[in-house]
């Protein structure tokens, strides 16, 4: 090494690796590196590090964004939550007005966690929208494989789950599938009525959530009727008026809670 050589400043080595040097300086450093094997070695190692990091994590950025991080869901959730907070506030006010025993009785209703229900309904509606829109292959296992699906979903959810029978309400069972959520696997059962309207029943285990009444959750474009019972969240979604939807949900809940 000739005595006239000056070391390349450490900062410049990094800026060289990161492509953050102005073009002339970049060229200058590249030239100096040819004469400084140790610095060149360092630059090679850092470059390799950088590339390895990028290569190994590139697939994360390419993944579909989980539903709960989708902006439209977050925005819809905020609106829904605000409404629920308002309703809860109204209920508190009512409780204060009624006072005493009445207020105490209402307490249970207010203490439910709206965010759990909102989250659940968002997942259910997202899956409803995606899968019911599929005219050719809306289900993974069709009506004739009802038992297979029940077994599959039960295994994955770690608890017995079977599709309810909605024929009395005019909805015929089409089949279903396993759905993916950030909280883990969920079951999705699909039905269709004579008008071609499709209904889904979404089942998602929610370990820490407390029981709730059956409640309509408005997530923007669609309503879902959701509830949580013994650590499992359920949502019924269908393009019908909310009164009708609520009745359908009550029927689903009745069947699912009935001892088998």
């Amino acid at each position, binding site marked *: 090494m000739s005595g006239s050589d000056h070391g390349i400043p450490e900062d410049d080595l990094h800026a060289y690796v990161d492509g*953050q040097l102005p073009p002339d300086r970049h060229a200058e450093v590249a030239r100096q590196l040819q004469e400084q094997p140790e610095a060149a070695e360092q630059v090679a190692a850092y470059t390799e*590090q950088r590339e*390895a990091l990028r*290569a190994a994590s590139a697939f*994360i950025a390419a993944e579909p964004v989980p539903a709960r991080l989708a*902006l439209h869901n977050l925005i819809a959730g905020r609106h829904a939550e605000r409404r629920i907070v308002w309703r809860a506030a109204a209920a508190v006010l009512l409780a204060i007005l009624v006072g005493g025993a009445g207020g105490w009785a209402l307490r249970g209703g207010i203490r439910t966690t709206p965010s759990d229900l909102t989250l659940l309904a968002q997942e259910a509606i997202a899956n409803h929208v995606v899968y019911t829109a599929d005219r050719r292959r809306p289900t993974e296992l069709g009506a004739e494989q009802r038992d297979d699906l029940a077994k599959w979903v039960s295994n994955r959810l770690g608890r017995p789950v079977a599709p309810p029978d909605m024929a009395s309400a005019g909805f015929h069972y089409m089949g279903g599938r396993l759905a993916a959520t*950030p909280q883990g696997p969920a079951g999705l059962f699909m039905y269709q009525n004579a008008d071609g309207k499709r209904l889904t029943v979404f089942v998602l285990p929610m370990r820490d959530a407390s029981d709730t009444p059956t409640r309509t959750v408005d997530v923007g474009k669609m309503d879902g009727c959701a509830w949580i019972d013994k650590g499992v969240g359920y949502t019924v979604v269908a393009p019908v008026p909310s009164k009708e939807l609520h009745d359908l949900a009550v029927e689903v809940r009745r069947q699912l809670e009935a001892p088998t």
Partner: protein
Amino acid sequence: MQTLDDRDASGQALPVAGRGNVSEQGVLARIEASVPALRRYAIALLRNRDEADDLVHDCLVRALDKLHTRREDADIRAWLFTIMHHHFISQIRRRRARPTPEPLDESHDNAVGLQPAQEDALHWRDLQRGLALLPEEQRSVILLVSLEDLSYAQAAEVLGVPVGTVMSRLARGRERLRQHTGQDTRAPLRRVK
């Protein structure tokens, strides 16, 4: 230092005209476009997908709260990383206040799911362990700069430290990572000066 945000892929400065359009939709679109990068950073930082998505979630909620304070031509990406960094730091403080034993063992590694099937999987695991050994402040700098292509000035802004601090953290972190991943064992050419 140049700021990448004002440049297009070819390194040209973008024309300034026409960018003054203050529209919430525009900001939202740019936030949405940044979500995959936020997740990648959070997962690499925390090495746990659920925690990472929680962090991104908190960051986005906060960003939506503060939406009205942003202009479309502002540096949205750096802003989002700044919010996330604040949340991350307060999370760490909470944990220190109430420490929970959290083994960084193999099963924890698995929870991350950062395991590409390629042959460099081994190298990645090395890198990942190496990253885990770094102080959080060095890890953040390496990820923001190497992975997210933030300029040194942007990284300084996100982390709330001077650019000089970014440079020294970057240098120390990279060197430590290099030693950990054993790249030095390739027998560097030593010359007698």
